[in-house]
């Protein structure tokens, strides 16, 4: 998109009915490194590719714990992500304090949507420049995966990906999404790693430093797997197939891509 006279502030519509500032905010998400999320009937797995600014620098953390039953993966402006995750943590704490129960994922995501929308309608403010993948496990309704974007759209998914080259990950996820339901958590992680690998540039590969996995599910509090603990999973990725998954298809037998249900 090119600069035009309707993109100076959030409260100006273009003649085509678009708010350019929101679209520019979505660009910030697309420029961030990839994050992938997928869920089965018992677990949600979030994976992220961590960028580093140079050889000597650390890799930027992309996965954050919100509560024992909830975690997020981000893509975009990390500072905005910190503000939103602080908000989420406060809301989760309030729910436990007032009602002695973990905050249901869907409600928290609605609150994020309301908060994000306010920034798209008040003059002088700007949309948040970060996309969130929210994974939660609710005691009554099971695992949930949500995508929250700067345009204040918060949708639920079986599998989704955001950030740079996320379309490649989405293509992989679409092909195998119908298998995710009943597989165990390790098979789910492996599918996630396959999807994440699709987002890498030609000469790069997943290693212990640039990769991060978050898991939450039934009887499984939010846990981040990083560093040396990744070795087992990356080795399995290298060796080719996910032998534990009931629906693990070899590359030759790719089924037709299917539209994803989002409810």
């Amino acid at each position, binding site marked *: 998109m090119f600069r035009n006279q309707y993109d100076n502030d959030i409260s100006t519509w273009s003649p085509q009915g678009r708010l350019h500032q929101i679209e520019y905010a979505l660009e910030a998400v697309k420029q961030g490194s990839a994050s992938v999320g997928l869920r089965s009937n018992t677990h949600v797995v979030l994976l992220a590719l961590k960028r580093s600014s140079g050889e000597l620098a650390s890799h930027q953390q992309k996965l954050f714990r919100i509560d024992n039953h909830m975690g997020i993966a981000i893509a975009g402006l990390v500072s905005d992500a910190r503000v939103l995750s602080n908000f989420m943590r406060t809301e989760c704490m309030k729910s436990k304090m*007032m*009602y002695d*129960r973990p905050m*249901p994922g869907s*409600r928290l995501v609605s609150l994020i949507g309301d908060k994000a929308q306010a920034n798209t309608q008040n003059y002088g403010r700007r949309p948040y420049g970060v996309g969130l993948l929210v994974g939660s496990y609710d005691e*009554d*309704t099971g695992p949930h995966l949500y995508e929250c974007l700067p345009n204040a759209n918060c949708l639920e998914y079986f599998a989704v990906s955001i950030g740079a080259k996320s379309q490649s990950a989405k293509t992989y996820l679409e092909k195998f999404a119908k298998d995710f339901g009943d597989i165990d958590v390790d098979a789910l992680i492996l599918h996630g790693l396959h999807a994440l690998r699709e987002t890498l540039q030609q000469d790069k590969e997943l290693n212990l430093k640039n990769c991060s996995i978050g898991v939450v599910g039934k009887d499984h509090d939010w846990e981040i797997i990083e560093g040396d603990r990744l070795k087992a999973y990356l080795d399995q990725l290298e060796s080719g197939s996910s032998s534990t998954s009931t629906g693990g298809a070899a590359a030759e037998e790719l089924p037709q891509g299917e539209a994803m249900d989002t409810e």
Partner: protein
Amino acid sequence: MDHFPTNWGNPRSEEVDSYNTYPVASHIGNVPHSVRQIAGYGHTNGHPTSHTQSPVVTGTSVLGLKYKGGVMMAADNLASYGSLARFRDIERLHKVTDFTVLGASGDMSDFQYVKHLLDSQMIKEYNADDGHTLATHNIYEYLWRVMYNRRSKMNPLWNTFVLGGVNKGESFLGAIDLKGTPYQSASIATGFGSHLAQPILRKELEQRGGENNITEEQAVEILKKSMKVLWYRDARSMNKFQLAKITSEGVTISESMSVETEWGFAENIRGYGA
């Protein structure tokens, strides 16, 4: 006429409004909003803040007992105005959700206010429409936080509440007093009940070896026995009460009932007008 009790006995404020026709700004009225909220002063309506110092229309004991299969509660139908037995058809056991009952002793207007607060919470939950409901222990946590918050502002809700319910096969029974103290047990009794009925309830539980050895019929017997003792000995009670039963099937609040009593011994008493 000055309608605000807190002004009675004090000289009228300097601002001239001979017949108190409009709210007059008080000289400590101009404080920042945050201070007003926390400190509680800064009102611009001409009278000082007053806090609840004593209850007006009150209910007496509420009893609660866990048994095999659920929770049972009892409360009489009386709301007293001091020593006057003023309102004799009040329902002090309130169904909050399909699986939770709130019993109230103490100030009845504060009970009505709490009913309103809980209604608001239920409506919020209903509107979220996402498969989650408030179980008894969620309501309990909310309610004791409210009571404690009011106590901390030196303006208590003058009640002792009993909350009983069932969630996913587990029974819940707890009390919260006006100071915000939560207390859970297999037997609960408030007011005079805590002195007269609680020993009966505890003895039954102990003798039978726990709530899972008390049947529904036995729970009714035990509560009726306790209500009888209270009718004999609590001067602010009434022999017309209801029982509430909560099981995994739901809530049933009975019609009003009475206990048989024996007053024949009174014939033999000398003194006190005889």
